[in-house]
């Protein structure tokens, strides 16, 4: 393992990999810092540029975007009080008050160092846990895979705050997308509705790009004001790095516990850093001797949020590399990039593509010092870029979405899928349907079917799903997550508004 990691690190230092990693990290920092532009959107924008690259070059670039984005998001959170991305919301709670008290440099660098440590601690788990988890998954038969994918879907649907039914409907709709076109086992045409290009099925990347890009851009346009943010680029960010480092390292419990939370949330499918930073902040507050000081500019609040959202990246990478299940939307795009290059993610990924897998670990590790250097040199430049008007950014992003969709198959069909998915995704958001279960359904639908058919081809006894121990456990957990979710919804309903509450249960 260490030999392969060492080789991966040395290989990643080669210019042909280091340049995409560096560029990706830079774009990530800028994209993460731009309020209204999420990391998912940034990685979607970068995706078409990676088509012509080697798989590891493209993935290094995307990993750079991911790590850079998670760190870059804290810049505007601390200095402007506007989170650059949802996973930096909790950073504003203490980062901005600290900056307003005249310590912007301290707020910023506590966040940066916490991000770096959180990310690197996450790397230890990423490298150590992915292989054994993949080995475990290799023992799975089609029954266990089927149960695992059902668990992933039910967990994500159950985690939806507003309505469990809407979460489940959203996941089911994602699976519906995958049943259009030829069946994945025998290639028999079905439900093509007379549309010729639908015979090959609906490619998931244009769906993912359309749903996320449009849902976000159109939601921004609802409240659109091109006033820009008042940015004081002359703000004094000078700070003693030794002192700030000391502030982070003398709070090991917050750092480690928040990293653990970030990893855990990252490993769970399709939840993402937005939940991780809030949960870690909440935990840091609960464990603090002075919880009343949270929100006034305490370092613990910044450390908790930033360590967790960077560790979340490592957790998401574990899930996708060990099981082929995306931990969030960004890793879903990476999954698409792997598919484009004909690489199958999942338990066999590490053993069949060891160089690529360890190259990805290396890219993740090296992205952190690169981001650190970038921020040392150019925080002020990032602040200048934040003032680029969205009236310019949005059309450019949508053009790149079109290019990305078109380049997938050199066909207008994928662009039409993009347009349709955009309208559909925005509609889903407006009607309160969560996007995460839908996307997971689109990604896992085929795999659920393939494993169901394989299991029945091996043995037509349906009881095997509940008599094989791992499969039974996973299905029980799946049922448990739904029951727990129903119970939580009922509890929330009782607490909040009585009989006319918002929740469905």
């Amino acid at each position: 393992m260490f030999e392969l990691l060492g080789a991966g690190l040395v290989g990643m230092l080669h210019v042909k990999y280091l340049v995409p990693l560096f560029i990706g990290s830079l774009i990530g920092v800028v994209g993460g810092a731009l309020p209204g532009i999420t990391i998912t959107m940034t990685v979607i924008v970068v995706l078409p540029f990676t088509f012509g690259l080697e798989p590891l070059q493209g993935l290094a670039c995307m990993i750079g975007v991911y790590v850079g984005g998670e760190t870059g998001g804290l810049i505007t959170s601390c200095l402007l009080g506007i989170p650059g991305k949802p996973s930096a919301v909790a950073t504003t709670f203490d980062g901005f008050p600290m900056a307003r008290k005249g310590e912007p440099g301290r707020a910023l660098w506590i966040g940066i160092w916490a991000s770096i440590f959180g990310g690197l601690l996450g790397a230890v788990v990423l490298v150590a846990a992915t292989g054994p988890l993949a080995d475990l998954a290799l023992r799975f038969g089609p029954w266990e895979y089927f149960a695992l994918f059902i668990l992933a879907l039910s967990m994500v649907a159950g985690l939806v705050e507003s309505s469990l039914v809407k979460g489940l409907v959203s996941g089911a709709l994602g699976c519906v997308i995958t049943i259009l076109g030829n069946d994945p086992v025998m290639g028999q045409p079905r439900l093509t509705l007379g549309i010729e290009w639908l015979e090959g099925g609906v490619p998931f990347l244009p769906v993912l790009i359309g749903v996320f890009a449009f849902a976000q851009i159109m939601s921004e346009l609802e409240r659109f004001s091109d006033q820009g943010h008042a940015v004081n680029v002359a703000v004094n960010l000078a700070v003693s790095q030794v002192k700030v480092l000391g502030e982070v390292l003398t709070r090991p419990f917050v750092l480690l516990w928040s990293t653990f939370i970030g990893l855990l949330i990252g490993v769970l499918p399709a939840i993402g850093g937005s939940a991780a930073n809030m949960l870690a902040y909440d935990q840091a507050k609960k464990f603090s001797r002075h919880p009343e000081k949270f929100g006034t500019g305490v370092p613990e609040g910044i450390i908790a949020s930033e360590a967790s959202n960077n560790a979340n990246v490592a957790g998401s990478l574990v899930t996708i590399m060990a099981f082929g299940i995306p931990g969030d939307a960004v890793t879903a795009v990476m999954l698409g990039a792997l598919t484009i290059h004909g690489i199958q993610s999942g338990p066999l990924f590490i053993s069949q593509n060891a160089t690529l897998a360890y190259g990805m670990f290396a890219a993740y590790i090296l992205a952190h010092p690169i981001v650190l250097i970038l921020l040392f040199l150019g925080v002020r430049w990032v602040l200048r870029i934040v003032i680029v008007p969205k009236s310019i950014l949005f059309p450019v992003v949508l053009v790149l979405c079109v290019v990305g969709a078109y380049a997938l198959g050199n066909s207008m069909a994928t662009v039409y899928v993009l347009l349709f998915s955009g309208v559909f995704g925005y509609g889903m958001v407006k009607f309160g349907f969560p996007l995460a279960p839908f996307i997971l359904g689109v990604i896992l639908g085929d795999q659920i079917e393939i494993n169901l058919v394989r299991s029945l081809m091996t043995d037509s006894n349906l009881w095997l799903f509940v008599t094989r121990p791992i499969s039974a456990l996973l299905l029980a957990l799946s049922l448990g997550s739904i029951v727990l979710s129903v119970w939580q919804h009922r509890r929330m309903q009782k607490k909040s508004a009585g009989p006319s509450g918002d929740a469905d249960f």
Partner: protein
Amino acid sequence: MLAASLFLFALTLGLKDNPLVPIGPGYYPRIVLGVTAVLAFALVITDVLHPQAAQAAEGLNYLLVVQTFVVFGLYVGALPFIGFRISTFLYVAATNALLDRPRGGKGWARVVLVAALTTVIVYYVFERYLTVLMPRGRWTNF
């Protein structure tokens, strides 16, 4: 959603089984569509039993959203006819002008400059360096 899932479910009933596999191509779609229909029905029942007041949409600029969608739809529709370069230039210019109304000659110069730069950079990066052949126009052959 309920109607669509029931319609697709009905279509799966016409799918013929394959003798080589124990379950036909309609087996899984029927499960998925059946579950979707049941969930959609549950959603309808929930809405009937617990009607939620329509959320106030005050201050939300839906007109701008619709306009942006329409311009994007026109862009996608125009791509096969007038090609990537012309349609992208027009699309970026139109959307930029829509989101930030140009005032005077300077404003229009900004719109044209942003559209031209975007088109040229994207075209050259993808077509020349990443060898992604962008759509040519049927009418313009360009």
